[in-house]
């Protein structure tokens, strides 16, 4: 007997979606039940795949069990290239939001991102407007809009399309961060370790930010 939730969950996982409380609460709750997890894993295991949790334990992804086959390696390589190409833009976005929110931590799953609040702060400081302009020069955030409101809307819209944000309410200008950020931080942690990106390099941006 098939189960609609099982089918939806497996399909979402196979479509490279990151399932978290924000992106799809129903599927997330389904996966939080041990029996469901086991059923999904049993199915995925038969097609060389498995269910994984991000290290923050807040989002599920589907991973290959065995990546020794050439086509699997190629798929992984392609995904990595995609992340590598977008990473600089995403880092700049995270820094921009941290500066705007005066926070000591980057965006995390569940955080509310309000276009109006961000725009108010950006338009109040020309330096921040310049940062937004440089952000929309990055490939994934590129837009023809020249005003801050249009640029910010484009950036948030792109992040929504990529699954990093989910629109809430009817206005279309308030979002919640999804578990994809947790996955990205895991990727960044790995890159940091393997590319030898020093942790103490952090002192640099502190000084830049103060300036």
């Amino acid at each position, binding site marked *: 007997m098939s189960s609609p939730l099982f089918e939806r969950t497996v399909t979402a996982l196979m479509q490279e979606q990151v399932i978290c409380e924000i992106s799809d609460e129903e599927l997330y709750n389904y996966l939080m039940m041990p029996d469901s997890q086991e059923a999904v894993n049993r199915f995925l295991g038969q097609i060389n795949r498995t269910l*994984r949790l991000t290290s923050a334990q807040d989002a599920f992804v589907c991973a*290959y069990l065995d990546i020794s086959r050439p086509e699997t390696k190629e798929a992984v390589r392609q995904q990595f290239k995609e992340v590598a190409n977008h990473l600089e833009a995403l880092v700049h976005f995270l*820094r921009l939001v941290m500066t705007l929110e005066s926070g000591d931590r980057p965006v995390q799953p569940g955080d509310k991102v309000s276009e109006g609040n961000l725009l108010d702060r950006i338009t109040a400081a020309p330096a921040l407007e310049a940062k937004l302009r440089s952000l929309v020069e990055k490939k994934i955030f590129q837009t023809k809009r020249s005003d801050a409101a249009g640029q910010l809307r484009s950036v948030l819209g792109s992040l929504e399309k990529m699954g990093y944000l989910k629109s809430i309410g009817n206005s279309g200008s308030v979002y919640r961060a999804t578990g994809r950020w947790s996955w990205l931080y895991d990727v960044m942690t790995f890159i940091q370790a393997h590319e030898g990106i020093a942790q103490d390099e952090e002192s640099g*941006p502190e000084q830049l930010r103060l300036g």
Partner: protein
Amino acid sequence: MARVQDAKSTLQALARFGGEILEAHLRHGNRLAETDENHNMLQTLEHHRLVWRIGDAEDLQLKKVLVQFLDHITETERRRYANAQVSQLWQKLADLFGDYKAAKKRSAFGDIDRLEGEIKECLAEVIEDIRNATEAFGSYINTGFAYVTDAELRIRENKRVIEQADKLIQLFESFKLSELAEQAGSDAFLKRLLLRYLPATLESSQKDLSYSLNQLRKMLVRFRENQRLSKLVGAFEVHYINHPGFEPTIEHIDFARLPEAFNTVSPFTIRGFGDIYDPVDELAIIDLAANARTVGNSSEPEQTIETAVSVNFDVAGEVEIEDSDPVEEAIVELLQLVVDGALGEQAILASDALKSTGLAVERADWLQALAAEIEVLSDNDRECIEVIFHDTPDPVYCDNLSVYDIALRHHYAQ
């Protein structure tokens, strides 16, 4: 006298801005934000030397003397050091019981009375301080250490509070209530305090404290993770600045040890065939198939266009040019002559016109065609023609008239 006046004025300022000062003390780490709304208050407090700051860019801070006073009146101090306070009181209680025992041995009734009173007071204080100490941790959880702005300092403050809570738990565990209870003697009030109120307070406080400790530890983990992620983003930011065009690669990585974060599947669609072999689904599939046909027809607009083009071609090839009708042409020409007034005021008979055309048409058909053509003339043209019917009555039904000719004449407007 002036000094007394100044002091009074300071106290009045404290009373006037009491709410804001308490808010700053309890929720904002003794800082007062410099806003337009606070402008008057800050000026007054600066005048009375109750605030200080290092640079213009910094927020104003309440002075130490005022903070100590606020600590006292809000019992913050007492709560902060309730841990040590409870320990001291507990020691004092143990000493008092020792003295009480000795006084009883010597039957020193005056001392017994005095010690009983002191023990009761001390016990009441212990119970109060235990409650205070526990509540203090709850307030740390509620604020989330938001009054500490720096991430590293917040972590240190959190750790310090966890250590305090740990010590308090150890202290509670060291209390030997059964031993104390034995020393209560026959005093009913003392027994009630030692056997009922103190154990109940300790039990609920330990429960609250355990919960607080758990929450504080979770908070510490969260703070550390936030700090790690913040450093991670910062490290990448600087790396991109220092190494323009940097692009991470995984070419040199051993795929056998690839972390899970990278090992996510590429998407593909899961599809299947409709189960035509299971009769249970037969009706549903028939319905789907029927719809599919409809969809198929309507979803091929391009083919329809191609068909239409070829049909158009065929139609164009089969166009038949009809021969013009000489009778109709002659009538149109005749009427045009009359309409244009080419005949002047003269009338022309239809029978004469027929003769002049040389057409082999029956007079009746000619007259009928002429009458029909006159009917379909436009209103303007019709007004230009005067039509006179030449007729004879029927010999039998005299009301019926037989038209044998029609005279046409241009009609000039009056």
